[in-house]
């Protein structure tokens, strides 16, 4: 579904990513782990087109999208929920959701989304800024899904969210990927969360992917220390 070969990117003249190679098959949930500053967010932003790739190839469903504009990638079916949620603070929850519906023509996705996220129903009229962090995260996810993406890029969905909500998000993601036939690339620092969801975990160090491990190995302290130790 997604193939990345020799991908490089950076900010201005500072290279962040170099020689990234990996691929994701349809229906897979793949996690990305790594320390701060290793290039995890940059990877997602480059995949989405927010940062121009300086080398390499990105293919989505066998189409070369390396040079494609951001909004075109979104229309092809790549959904991105960035770090910090990025909802529209002044717009109501309803309008936030409507904004996500671009790819859909005709029937609104909102009723279906409310079945998956009943918590949003009571909040529909409220402006985005009046939501709690967890609610904002759920809204950001729901809004992204309103566009019916086939590939979902998630950047630290659990950041700054209380543990009980993290569990809910985890369960919801597991349910949704099956129900909506989603493929997911998940960047996360929360080991427990990533171990519960991902089928495969890529380890990033200094802008490149150094290993691919099974989620069970995350409970192995030796491995965690090797790749993620301080």
């Amino acid at each position, binding site marked *: 579904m997604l193939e990345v070969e020799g991908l490089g990117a950076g900010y201005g003249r500072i290279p962040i990513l170099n020689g990234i190679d990996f691929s994701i098959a349809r229906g897979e949930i793949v996690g990305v782990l790594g320390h701060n500053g290793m*290039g995890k967010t940059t990877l997602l932003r480059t995949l989405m087109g927010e940062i121009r790739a300086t080398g390499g190839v990105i293919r989505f469903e066998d189409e070369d999208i390396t040079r494609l504009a951001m909004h075109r990638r979104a229309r092809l079916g790549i959904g991105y929920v960035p*770090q910090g949620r990025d909802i529209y603070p002044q717009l109501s929850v309803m309008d936030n959701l409507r904004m996500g519906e671009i790819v859909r023509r005709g029937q609104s996705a909102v009723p279906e989304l409310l079945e998956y996220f009943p918590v949003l129903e009571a909040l529909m009229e409220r402006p985005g800024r009046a939501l709690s962090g967890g609610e904002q995260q759920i809204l950001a996810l729901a809004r992204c899904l309103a566009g019916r993406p086939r590939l979902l890029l998630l950047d630290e969905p659990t950041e700054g969210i209380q543990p009980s909500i993290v569990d809910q998000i985890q369960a919801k993601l597991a349910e949704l990927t099956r129900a909506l036939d989603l493929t997911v690339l998940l960047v996360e620092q929360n080991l427990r969360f990533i171990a519960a969801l991902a089928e495969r975990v890529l380890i990033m160090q200094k802008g490149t992917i150094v290993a691919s491990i099974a989620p069970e190995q995350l409970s192995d302290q030796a491995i965690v220390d090797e790749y993620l130790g301080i």
Partner: protein
Amino acid sequence: MVHGILAMQHPSERPKWWWWVFVAGLAAFFITMPFHLEIFVILEMSRFFGMAMLALSMGFLWGFSGILSFGQTAFFGLGGYGFTVLALNTGETTGSVFFAVALGAAGAGILGYFMIYGRISEIYLSVITLVFTLILEKGIRATSGDQYVIGKVRLNGQNGIPTVPQLDVPWNTSVQLDINWFFWVGAVVMILVYIGLRLLLTTPFGRVLVGIRENERRTELLGYDTRRYKLGAFMLAGGVAGLGGAFYAISIPLAHPEMFSLGRAADVIMWVLVGGKGTLIGPIAGVFAIEHFKGWLGTQGVGQVTLVLGAVLILFVLVFQRGLVPSIGSLPGLWQDRAAIGRRLGEAAAQARRPVRRRGQARRGSGA
């Protein structure tokens, strides 16, 4: 209700019945004016309608798509001159008004294309639009010679074109509208522009514009080609400014380089800021309040009208940061918000007791 009209919390919602009542009331207010006001007041107020359209064009652009065009006066002036030159050449005014709209939109289309597709940052966009209007002003001021003629109309440089034709009746062009009729047409056109822009905000196009205002990057991530939407909004605002320019030129009646000037460009900002950015009724109210106040100051023998006006405006912007109209509009809202504020406080307190990372820590754009 007051809240909905004056503060426009949810621009994408269809206006309710009471909004239409408000609009009807507004129309009735203007339409009855010629019956009980002196003719010089009517003449004076006729000028305001063109200005109000100019203010609406900026209020829409700035308030709802976040583009601060300092040079809406460029398209205002183009509309004024376009109308005058065409109407004097053809002797027909209705088509010339449409031409003024088209000219404003086309000017905005050309300028906007380079700025928006060139991904120029917001501050440069403001500067470039301002420079554009000043270049037009200089250009027009330099056309005093006999050689500057379009068709049979001399542009007249500094002095402007004083022979702007009055509007005539579209189906009988030999009959010109009198002062009252021009007032009514101006009022109705202004209100129609207001209704049109308001309803546009409820369409998907309008929603995307507000999305761009809130967060352009995010909107692009959701699959919208934001540049196309911004250019569309810019052209629409250019057309509305052009329409205002035509009405203004007819009302004075004079097509003058002053229409492009720095002073006029600053006026527009003031109308929108004082009236209330982020609303559509605010810019209209701003025009009527400020222009009326200017006129009144002039009769009070204070001498330094501009100075007093400036001081009042500064004070005003400091006290009513969101503008006159939204400040009035949010008074009833404060009462409703109490519950929401209480809820937030309770939540925050609950959160503070738990040993978790605070949610304000979102490291947006840290780039890791």
